């Protein structure tokens, strides 16, 4: 039985984790490797790091933190933000990341998905897509951190990305993101029904119930940032509750650190 995954997302700028609300009022929150280890201890199944300074593309010297995270973290992690070519993707994987996520660059150059997946394997390529609702059952793809319409339909884009070899879809609803009022479950359902790969739901988590709704809508994993950073939702409590409500969850034994 495959369990559903809980994925905290950390924003990184200049090699430090930053916390903020919708990219505003950013505060230094700590060292990526230390925070990664804390989330692993709390029971996170996987982590996603988004470099919001987009230094992944421009300043390769700023990537030492990826290797430091890998030294501390023994669960899978994805790194994204500003990756524009397959050599950057390969470098991030060689530093110890399990997956890279592609967003704006893949919209501009869809063949990037194929090049990355043939170089690194589909399992290492996550397509991050920011979706804006344009009507009932219709969403448009947004690029540049969700600020600019790409002029393409969400469902046709995710299908195309899968045919090019992406191994997972990280689906963020721009409408829900930052609201703390729940995931866009209709969007999750539509994407999950359209693609043969796992779907990670993102945007809108505010309380435990929202995660339950995402999984019942077909999400394989649910990602959140602020509720975990600010402690409104505790991962171990969340997983225990979801498990008791019939969602298969990985629950790691207490005292698992003994002897390690």
């Amino acid at each position, binding site marked *: 039985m495959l*369990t559903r995954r809980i994925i905290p997302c950390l924003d990184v700028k200049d090699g430090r984790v930053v916390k903020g609300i919708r990219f505003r009022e950013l505060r230094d929150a700590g060292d990526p490797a230390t925070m990664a280890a804390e989330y692993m201890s709390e029971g996170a199944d996987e982590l996603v790091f988004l470099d919001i300074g987009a230094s992944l593309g421009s300043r390769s010297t700023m990537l030492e933190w990826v290797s430091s995270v890998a030294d501390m973290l*023994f*669960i899978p992690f994805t790194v994204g933000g500003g990756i524009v070519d397959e050599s950057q993707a390969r470098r991030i994987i060689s530093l110890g990341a399990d997956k890279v996520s592609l967003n704006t660059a893949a919209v501009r150059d869809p063949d990037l998905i194929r090049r990355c997946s043939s170089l690194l394997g589909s399992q290492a390529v996550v397509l991050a897509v920011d979706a804006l609702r344009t009507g009932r059952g219709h969403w448009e793809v947004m690029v540049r951190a969700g600020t600019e319409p790409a002029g393409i339909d969400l469902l046709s884009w995710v299908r195309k990305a899968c045919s090019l070899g992406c191994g997972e879809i990280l689906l963020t609803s721009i409408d829900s993101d930052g609201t703390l009022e729940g995931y866009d479950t209709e969007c999750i359902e539509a994407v999950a029904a359209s693609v043969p790969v796992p779907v990670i739901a993102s945007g809108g988590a505010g309380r435990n119930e929202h995660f339950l709704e995402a999984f019942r809508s077909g999400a394989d994993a649910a990602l959140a940032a602020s509720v975990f950073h600010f402690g409104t939702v505790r991962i171990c409590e969340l997983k225990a509750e979801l498990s008791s409500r019939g969602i298969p969850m990985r629950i*790691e034994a207490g005292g698992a650190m003994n002897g390690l």
Partner: protein
Amino acid sequence: MIGLIDYGAGNIGNVGRALKRLGRESVVLDSPDDPCSGVLEALFLPGVGSFPSAMASLVSRGWSSFISEWVRMDRPLVGICLGMQILCEGSTEGGRSEGLGVFQGIVDKLSGTRKLPHVGWNILEWVVPFPGDMEPTPGLDCFYFVHSYGIPPARDTVATTTVDNACFTSVAKRGRTIGFQFHPERSGFRGLRLLSHTMEELGV
């Protein structure tokens, strides 16, 4: 010293990191001619990618004969993910290719699953007790998987895993060769504990 076989199939750094966390020294080996090859206590064969290209790479770098001889001498060997599959008799991936033939069975594409690849945390059902690793756990005993092909349960199966209607070998053991279809090095503290028990079981 533990040798990590590097044959160009995926990132092996994280296996070394996990061993380091357990206090075990490891060295990445490009070729069996590496001077370190003579002083190894155990070999790890990791791997991500496709079976035929991985096998071709092992053969061309001289690893296939080195590994076969290593196994014949019953020395400790751990295969992870594709590295475990390579230790089987063969695979149907990309046509039919031969493996190293330690574990019984032919690797085949998983059938009966809702989605492929099989990505995420799944449970093990132990078929044969694995010493030191059978303590009861309060929750689901999960490990991290990423694969589309698997080994049907056979002679050397120690644990199986099921996803939708597909059941495959998730742990195999033959003599002092152990294979994991999942990634113990990415399976949290539980995975590290399993790796630690594996080293004890292998007498390393």
